[in-house]
């Protein structure tokens, strides 16, 4: 992911910010605020919470600026801080959870063969086309239906690009558990996209 690599601009800005140059810190904030806000908004699904988490994240970053070593990317570091803040907030407001059993996935015959496979191979469309508005909506709804622990892992890994190690650090879960949830979440989302593409080809 792009955030794994520290850009030269970030490195220079960081060095200046660490020396107390406020305008350099503000430039770093401006460069990363959309991603931090996006992460917080997706995780909490609340614009007000996302705005506050973004504020708290950059304030924490500023307060710990001197401790931050430039060997990691600034973007990756603030992403981890934001994930921490977002998860803390989510832990405080436990909402009704979708049960794991509701996670959709492919269906198999008793012999372990795919019962229903892609009638339309939409994988190539995924790279080229502007995203269809209805497909976007279907994906957002499917992501919303994921049980919380699965949704969090999927968002942090596949959308926000955190590493497994970072996710393990902020969630307290083991890497194998995270991978297993990520896989189940991807299967459920793949199913939702497949249903969208094949909505005219299959019976109800």
């Amino acid at each position, binding site marked *: 992911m792009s955030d794994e690599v520290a850009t030269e601009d970030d490195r220079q800005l960081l060095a200046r910010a660490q020396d107390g140059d*406020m305008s350099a*810190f*503000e430039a770093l*904030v*401006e460069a990363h*605020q*959309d991603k931090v*806000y*996006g992460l917080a*908004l*997706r995780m909490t699904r609340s*614009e007000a919470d*996302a*705005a506050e988490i*973004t*504020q708290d994240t*950059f*304030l924490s970053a*500023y307060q710990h600026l001197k401790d931050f070593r430039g060997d990691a990317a600034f973007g990756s570091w603030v992403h981890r801080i934001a994930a921490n803040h977002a998860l803390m907030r989510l832990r405080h407001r436990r909402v009704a959870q979708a049960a794991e059993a509701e996670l959709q996935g*492919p269906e*198999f015959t008793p*012999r*372990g*063969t*795919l019962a229903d*496979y*892609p009638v339309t*191979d*939409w*994988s190539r469309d*995924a*790279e080229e086309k502007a*995203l269809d508005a209805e*497909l*976007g909506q279907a*994906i*957002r709804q499917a*992501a919303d239906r994921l049980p919380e622990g699965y949704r969090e892992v*999927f*968002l942090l890994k*596949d*959308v926000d690009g955190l590493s497994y190690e970072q996710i393990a650090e902020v969630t307290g879960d083991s890497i194998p558990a995270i*991978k297993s949830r*990520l*896989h189940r979440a*991807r*299967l459920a*989302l*793949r199913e939702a*996209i*497949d249903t969208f593409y094949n909505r005219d080809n299959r019976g109800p």
Partner: protein
Amino acid sequence: MYTCKDSINLLLEYLEGEMSPDEAKHLQEHLSGCSPCEEFLATYRATPGLCKRALAARMPKEVSSKLTEFLRAKIKSAS
């Protein structure tokens, strides 16, 4: 010989190159003889990218201005 179910269970490890050579060989054998699974793999691989695009968000301008104000006030009062 792996079934479709075995293969699909292993797709994440496969794509991340974390399987033993033996497992990878069994999986490749299944995939090369099973076009539904081949297509399944292609769509599984395309899923994160599509989701990322669908879930992209930008910070509204007024939130961005508030953020700047907030940080300036906090940092000024601390120094």
